[in-house]
């Protein structure tokens, strides 16, 4: 069964990169442009894994993760956070918000798929 990955990133380039890597690995990809949009797409597509950026307009990654984690329907979905830096404080904040794991940009497709494998059943 094809698994669905929701990517949330305000950068079209990043979304395209993610889509290329994920589609190449056989995932179904749905996209959102910010946290608010991510919550909408979430209810429509029920992804198996979420990959989200942190710096986004409207609702940032932290807020998005928190919103997913307080929703009984979605809180078991693994969430991987995209960060450009291995900045420990940002990573820590994302984890406190409920992130399952993280991917440091720039990523290569193998590492991305590996990170998904590590969190997705």
């Amino acid at each position, binding site marked *: 069964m094809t698994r669905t990955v929701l990517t949330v990133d305000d950068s079209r*380039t990043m979304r*395209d990169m993610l889509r*290329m890597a994920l589609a190449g690995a056989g995932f179904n990809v749905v996209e959102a442009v910010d946290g608010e949009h991510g919550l909408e797409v979430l209810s429509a597509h029920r992804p*198996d894994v979420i990959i989200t950026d942190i710096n986004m307009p409207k609702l940032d990654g932290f807020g998005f993760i928190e919103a997913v984690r307080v929703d009984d329907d979605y809180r*078991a979905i693994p969430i991987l956070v995209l960060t450009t830096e291995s900045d420990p404080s940002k990573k820590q904040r994302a984890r406190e918000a409920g992130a399952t794991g993280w991917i440091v940009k720039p990523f290569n497709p193998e590492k991305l798929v590996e990170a998904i494998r590590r969190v997705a*059943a």
Partner: protein
Amino acid sequence: MDELEAIKVTFFQECEELLADLEGGLLAMQDGNDDGDTVNAVFRAVHSIKGGAGAFGLEPLVRFAHVFETLLDALRSNEIPGTPDLTALLLRASDVLADHVSAARGLGVVDMDVSAAMAAELKIATDPNAAPAAAAPVAEAPQYVDAAPIVIGADDGMDDDDLGFDFQPMTITLDAQAADAAVLDGDVWTVSIRPKSDLYRKANETALLLRELSRLGPIQATLDDSALPALEFIDPEAAYVTWSVRVETEQGEEAIREVFEFVDGDCDLEITRGEAPVADVLASLLDIAAPAPAPEAAPVAVEIPAEAPPVSAVGPAAEAAPLAAPMPVSAPAPAAPPVAANAPAPAAAKPAQIDVPGPGQSVIRVDPERIDRLIDLVGELVINQAMLAQRVGEYGIAPSSNLAMGLDELEQLTREIQDSVMAIRAQPVKSVFQRMPRLVREVANMTGKQARLVMDGENTEVDKTVIERLSDPITHMLRNAIDHGLESPEERKAAGKNPEGVVRLAALHRSGRIVIEVQDDGKGINRERVHSIAVKKGLISPDLTLTDEEIDNLIFLPGFSTADKISDVSGRGVGMDVVKRSVQALGGRISITSRPGLGSTFTLSLPLTLAVLDGMVVDVAGETLVIPLACIVESLRPKAEEIRPLGPVGSVLAVRDSFVPLIDVGLTLNYRDRSPPPTEGVVLLVEGEDGSRAALVADAIHGQRQVVIKSLEQNYQQVEGVAAATILGDGRVALILDVDAVINLRRRGPPPPSDPTLIAAE
């Protein structure tokens, strides 16, 4: 890697947008119009550029963006105060960033000295205490670039304090294979995992950790559920069990730790080399088990095959439970697995890419050639439809007949199709406008002026083909406004003005045309000087008396330049005359108004599209001509008493309270030698771009028609007084009149002495 190349194209497109956002945000900050989110948006813009650049390995761009981003991060977290000076620095940095983006794209090169100097400035602004020297290495080698694509948490180490629990790590090995002599002792590890409830709260899953461990080598996992309370006391959200896993792997402790990277801190983890002695484990197990309500609970051994099980889409909790034990010991099952929910998506849910404003707006990319082809075809359709209408008219079919009414509907539909097709190619002028703030900064720097650009109407839409040709005239008008219009800060202060001059760039739609205005609040045109220069250069005769407006427009004459010395900026051999000619070639007009001491306004008007035109079809000396509807104020049949002779050959028409010159189109275009009495024809009152009026005399009016413009220059050559050509419904070619040129031609004819332009233009 075609796909990657395509993404790279997207990246650079996005960079353009991000750079525009960046500049827009910084300008808002400069004007004090920023809300709390502006600085965040500005940060995000640079951050996203860096992120994308990193993905493509565009090192110099990444490096510069990193330094820039660091400063913006400090600014948005209020570590450093926002000041006008800082904003000015950020604006200049955004210019350098734009250069880096262009260079990365292969368009131009970055002046590395400028870039390094800017990076150093940014670094100092971020941390004023940092010595300038310290800035250089950071600019050269940001740590970020060298970071591995995925950071491995191995160096983080475990927090030993977390293990100071009232819990003894243990391993129970019930499998005889564990003692397999073939396995070297050094390759056997015992991993003790005691998950905390936080681990599950973050949607991590013990079963997946075991699966990951099994990728390192054969494992045997043992569950200790001795801490599990009786069912009625179980908190479903809590974690009670401990796993002990024997791993055979040659990959070492780091590889094992890496498996637990994501759950660092969310579980107690102990990794020991070798087997845990069974006796010890049993002993400690008994210790712990004593207070447990279920002392008889035996450790349950679970074996996981060495190769990872096929990945399934079952929810995490569901898979974990059968692995662990018949009891609900493993996962506190935080929620129903997503797949289990079979409720249809709520009606409000939208498809991912639809109805989302902003950057995610759904966009179809189409080859422009296809659109051009479509526009051509629609043009043909319009012509064809006009031809049909004409034929039907010729057959004398009543307008109320079904056929005529059907044709009317067809005409409306054709028009709608045409509008829609043109709208596809319409774009906001923003793409041109957004390049201008930088130009203004640079010109202001070069000329020692202080200038602030105010833009209006960036979202005004115009055909893409027009947009492409707007850039040069606007650039030139802005340069001119700053270089010649604005005074130096000292002069401005002396005149009681704000030392910072304001240049306003606006776009608006006006009667089917796009109008671009460039307005400065400078000193205005020095008419005496303009006049004397024009005389000195022999452009006008010295004894001419000119109106203010006429003097202002002298600057469009070829070979006119008011600057005493040719400056860096405007003096590129391109005068306003060249601008005027290029604008005219597009069917546009340019004019200027000026008020001494208050400033000047350049007004540029262009047709919205270069493809179609609404026109009045008239008959002149047996020729069919089209007069652009936008120029026509009214049409009338003159009475003899309204016509007054003026001079030897000219005459004027009294229209209400004023007199306008009468121009016989046939005479002006040399269709005939003598003009028939105007009372026999029709007069079209037209208004030129500069507001001057004239009464054009034609023989008859055929009607109003939309015509498809065919360039005369491309197909033949430029003809004075004629803007373009079109094909009428009957297949004949008709010329489209250039109204302003006709007015000027007539002025030039037998020279009435009061007219400056006729001498000037020659």
